């Protein structure tokens, strides 16, 4: 179901890879992988199902990934946001673990929002969080974003050229409280409020802590038992039915939320972070790849991408994971590993044959017939980096197009003449063809 149905919300534009396009000064603050948006009072407003929710400093963007369409709810329209609410089950175990993240199919967090849509109409909608996520953190960020009112500030003077650079910038620390402060009493009032809220937080924290400490030992034993049970179960019954698998998955997730590493890991699509990173990378690389002729070494991409991000640099491992995820999505780039081990990123339209044709014609020029071509010659002519040129030459050698010549002068490649020579009659030569062309050029330089 695409996001187009919910036409009571303004639409949001999406990049070619399916990431939301952010306006100048708009910064991403949090992501929830899977939510629904349900209007609670008005039956005429269409709900949104199965969307990725991106909280930015200006909007709540609901992105429907399969159809790559999105709707954006401006934060300016949010009058009030109610804290996340969830029906507790009677399972005491679940309620103990439930403080941070777990959720099951019967109980999703609901965040109610009272919004005022033009023309001067008040609605109540609920964001239903159907995935496992830290809803409290999201809610905290939502409140901060609403309070910050970033959409009222004038846009920065320097133009932001691409959404990726804007997202990469550090979150602006202007969450300054902008409530009207009237005189000294206003200041005192603020102080009072902050003290009270701090006191309350501390109390809550200690309460949890005391309870946890008293149960800690029992908790660990129980968790250990469950872990072993999971381990033995999964190894003896690989074909259990769906219901069992579902509850087992829940159990694993509960354990994970307490910090115990799952004993059995299935192949996942990668954390949400890597997914988003890989899409962002694909968007970013579109232009540099074109300039570089369709192929770039992975190390170059690492430098380029991190330089563009400014802060919040990614590790080489993250980059590699992001590239590997491209296999699962439809993007116009791919990771490729040459025989020598060099990894490059190339556009899917890149063709080896075309490169071979260019190398072949280069190797048949009179100069090259006489002296061969070196990787730097090839790099110069093909317009690519020398390291990549060498890979291409080695590739062409493997295909039988070129032969290498190793000498004290260095490493050079010649067009492959061996296929043209008749081993039965080593003195004969055809009056035309490659061998003949080579002989006339090479012999011209012999005395």
């Amino acid at each position: 179901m695409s996001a187009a149905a919910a036409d009571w919300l303004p639409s949001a534009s999406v990049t070619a890879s399916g990431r939301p396009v952010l306006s100048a000064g708009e910064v991403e603050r949090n992501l929830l992988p899977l939510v629904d948006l349900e209007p609670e009072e008005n039956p005429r407003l269409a709900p949104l199902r199965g969307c990725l929710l991106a909280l930015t400093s200006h909007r709540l963007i609901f992105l429907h990934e399969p159809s790559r369409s999105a709707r954006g709810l401006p934060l300016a329209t949010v009058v009030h946001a109610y804290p996340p609410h969830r029906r507790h089950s009677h399972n005491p175990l679940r309620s103990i673990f439930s403080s941070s993240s777990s959720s099951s199919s019967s109980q999703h967090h609901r965040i109610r929002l009272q919004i005022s849509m033009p023309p001067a109409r008040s609605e109540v909608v609920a964001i239903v969080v159907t995935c496992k996520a830290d809803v409290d953190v999201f809610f905290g960020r939502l409140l901060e974003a609403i309070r910050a009112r970033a959409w009222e500030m004038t846009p920065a003077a320097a133009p932001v050229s691409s959404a990726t650079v804007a997202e990469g910038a550090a979150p602006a620390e202007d969450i300054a409280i902008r409530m009207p402060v009237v005189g000294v009493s206003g200041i005192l009032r603020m102080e009072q409020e902050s003290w009270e809220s701090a006191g309350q937080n501390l109390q809550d924290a200690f309460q949890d802590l005391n309870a946890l400490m008293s149960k800690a030992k029992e908790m660990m034993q129980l968790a250990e038992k469950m872990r072993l049970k999971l381990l033995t179960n999964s190894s003896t019954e690989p074909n259990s039915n769906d219901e069992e698998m579902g509850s087992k998955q829940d159990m694993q997730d509960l354990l994970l939320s307490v910090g115990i590493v799952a004993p059995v890991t299935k192949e996942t699509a990668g954390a949400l972070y890597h997914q988003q990173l890989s899409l962002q990378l694909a968007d970013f690389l579109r232009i540099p790849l074109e300039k570089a002729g369709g192929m770039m070494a992975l190390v170059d991409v690492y430098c380029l991408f991190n330089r563009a991000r400014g802060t919040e640099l990614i590790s080489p491992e993250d980059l590699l994971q992001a590239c590997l995820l491209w296999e699962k999505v439809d993007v116009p780039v791919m990771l490729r590993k040459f025989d020598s081990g060099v990894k490059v990123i190339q556009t899917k339209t890149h063709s080896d044959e075309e490169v071979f044709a260019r190398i072949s014609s280069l190797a048949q020029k009179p100069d090259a017939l006489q002296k061969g071509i070196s990787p730097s010659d090839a790099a110069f002519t093909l317009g690519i980096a020398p390291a990549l040129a060498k890979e291409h030459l080695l590739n062409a050698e493997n295909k039988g197009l070129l032969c290498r010549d190793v000498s004290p002068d260095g490493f050079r490649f010649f067009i492959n003449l061996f296929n043209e020579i008749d081993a039965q009659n080593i003195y004969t030569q055809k009056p035309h063809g490659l061998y003949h062309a080579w002989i006339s050029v090479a012999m011209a330089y012999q005395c």
Partner: protein
Amino acid sequence: MKRLGNFELPDFCNYPPYFTIIFSLQFATREVQVRLWKELILAYCRSQRIYIVSFEQDFPSFSNPAIGRSLSREAKEVFLSALVTEGEWEYLNSVPGHAEWMDGNCYKCLILWLTIQDWANCLKENGLGSTMPVEDIRSGFDTRGTELAGIDSIVLMRALRLLEQKGKAAIFKVNDCEGIKFCV
């Protein structure tokens, strides 16, 4: 470089990659390179009457000073081995080959641009006298100008022994001098 002495070099000796051994992964090209070297070695040895190739001495066709290239030690071994191995396989099928290592370390190689059998046939067909010293075959008046002139003594003895096995000749010794009696 077009000539080595009175031997005309084929044109591909001026092709630099000829002197760089091709990885065995590039199967087809490597085969051609090996064959070309085998042909060249045999042709050169035949024309210059060289019977033994040793790594301690220079073998001119292994390098081309005009283009500044020469075969590495490893490459020389590979190409000579190709001549030898061909012979080994053929030996298993009772067909002799074109080269043999003379020692276990592969330092010296005996080049048989005519196989032992070929030499034996040559001896038979040459219409030599019924009895003569072995030395005469090598350097005597009768064989001057024929293939047999200056034949290596090792090769000659092996050919003669082959004839002996087949009953076409008999080797005898008189006063430290070996002679051969050809049967009709």
